[in-house]
């Protein structure tokens, strides 16, 4: 609570200290800015421009007007990919958020074994998506994989060959890879909740379940928003894992939008339509990020400092 006094103080002092420093400090940000503009902002603008051109990736780039946009928007394949992207995004969120919240609260406890658990949880994050995909291909083999090892015939399915199962497998493997990371974020969030709030609640007779829903979850509001932003925007970048695991198949059962963009651009050599898909990806990403930020209120850093 004492911290509520500190930020205004800091804010009052800051201008006085750094008055007249703008000119001398601004240049420090220039190298980072140059890199970022050159390889992120210009390409971002470039993809919009390219969406109005025809290019096969090698030859000349010719203007195409809105033809690519029309072709993408009448393509049922794009809508299918878009739908799959949202399915993966939403189902992943629904699975990963409660699980990592629960695990985060659990590992935030101070017993030694929980610290060890948290270390072990982290391991999947060290593997590259390509490595994970390759490992899961072997693991899911009905004859020589996990199913045979556990002698559970129910696990002996053609996981990656059956269109209805493959999407589930993709969502599961994504959870396997990323739940640890979000657990870590929640663990950090839980540790920042002042202990005194719980003590007060305990005195008031609130049980553990109540404490969880009325203290832990509300206190973790910003953590939930951060984690959800990374999770949902992240769903727009799941490329390598799916590319190696299923390559979008069987059929188009796991061809989500980022993969659709790659296959359209670099396999079918249709850079124009692929750029249209890329623009759609950016638009969804920015919309999601802004939407989730809004949920958290406008001045995030400020309000969080005060909440501490």
């Amino acid at each position: 609570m004492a911290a509520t006094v500190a930020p205004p103080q800091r804010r009052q002092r800051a201008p006085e200290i750094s008055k007249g420093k703008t000119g001398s400090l601004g240049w420090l940000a220039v190298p980072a800015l140059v890199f970022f503009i050159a390889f992120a902002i210009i390409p971002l603008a470039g993809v919009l421009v390219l969406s109005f051109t025809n290019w096969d990736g090698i030859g000349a780039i010719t203007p195409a007007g809105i033809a690519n946009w029309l072709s993408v928007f009448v393509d049922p394949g794009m809508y299918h990919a878009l739908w799959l992207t949202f399915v993966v995004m939403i189902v992943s969120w629904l699975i990963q958020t409660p699980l990592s919240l629960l695990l985060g609260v659990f590992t935030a406890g101070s017993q030694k074994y929980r610290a060890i658990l948290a270390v072990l949880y982290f391991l999947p994050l060290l593997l590259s998506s390509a490595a994970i995909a390759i490992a899961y291909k072997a693991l899911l083999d009905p004859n020589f994989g996990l199913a045979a090892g556990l002698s559970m015939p129910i696990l002996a399915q053609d996981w990656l060959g059956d269109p209805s199962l493959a999407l589930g497998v993709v969502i599961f493997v994504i959870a396997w890879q990323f739940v640890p990371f979000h657990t870590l974020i929640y663990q950090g969030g839980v540790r920042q909740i002042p202990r005194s709030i719980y003590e007060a609640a305990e005195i008031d007779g609130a049980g553990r379940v109540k404490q969880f829903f009325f203290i832990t979850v509300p206190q973790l509001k910003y953590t939930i928003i951060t984690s959800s932003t990374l999770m949902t925007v992240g769903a727009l970048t799941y490329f390598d894992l799916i590319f190696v695991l299923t390559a979008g198949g069987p059929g188009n059962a796991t061809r989500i939008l980022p993969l659709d963009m790659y296959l359209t651009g670099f396999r079918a050599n249709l850079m124009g339509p692929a750029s249209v898909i890329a623009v759609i990806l950016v638009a969804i990403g920015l919309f999601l990020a802004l939407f989730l930020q809004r949920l958290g209120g406008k001045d995030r850093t400020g309000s969080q400092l005060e909440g501490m």
Partner: protein
Amino acid sequence: MATTLTPAATERKETLPPSGIKLGSKLRRLNLPGGTAGWLWLAVTIVPIYYIVITSLKTQAGYFGQNPLAPPSSPTLENYKMVLEADFTRYFFNSVIITVGAVIPTLAVAFMASFAIVRGNGKFLKGVNALFLMGLAIPLQATIIPIYLMIIKMNLYDSLLAIILPSIAFAIPLSVLIMCNFIRDVPNELFESMRLDGCSEWQTMWRLALPLTKPAIVTVGIYNGLGVWNGFLLPLILTQSPELRVLPLGLWTFQGEFSVNIPAVLASVVLSTLPVVVLYIVGRRQLLSGLTAGFSK
């Protein structure tokens, strides 16, 4: 720095064990669902990793003949030998080059930018900060086609530099976010006293801010390093020669070539992960405390 950010944790550590059975037993009761999920998830995490490691030590015959979850009856390092002979070392060094080549410049430029954003003021720096924050939401995938075009135009296609440059750009936003969070925690009084001692902002940055931001720098370094080391898309699109393959790409092509030899494929998976695991063991505390501080604020 990290400890100052988690007073609740240390406080709890002190009060929990001695202060008695009452609080402790209550905690245990609360965590029944958490505990169940915790141990279940441990199995979900560990079993695949266990499977990868033991299978990589099996012979082909052992792979086909044994229970897949049983430890190898006659462990062999043949698979590893085979992988190491199959250009693995080249992929490894390419990965080292792009990782070091991307991470060090990222740390340098992101640190300077973070210092400027926290310590300076004015519209320009506010704009820079806003731009980087927005950058967090730009998916790298979406910009890959123009990047491909630019890299071709710059005559960098099929070079390691082609992977390094975009990697730096896309690592900047998150690096700046985390470093800013740390620099903001440096008490203003310290900056003030540096100023009174007659230090310029440039000196203050290197002599005061840099040492105090070290945990964040290490964190960001490991995190970005992990990202570049495991990156797949940029090498896939921006390089072509087998001599320039990095590990994830090498794994993928290796898998295509040796798909009948699963133990060898999994040995290559283990080998590609090993350096990262070693680094993780060394820098674990730093990474975890830095990440929690960077994200949960």
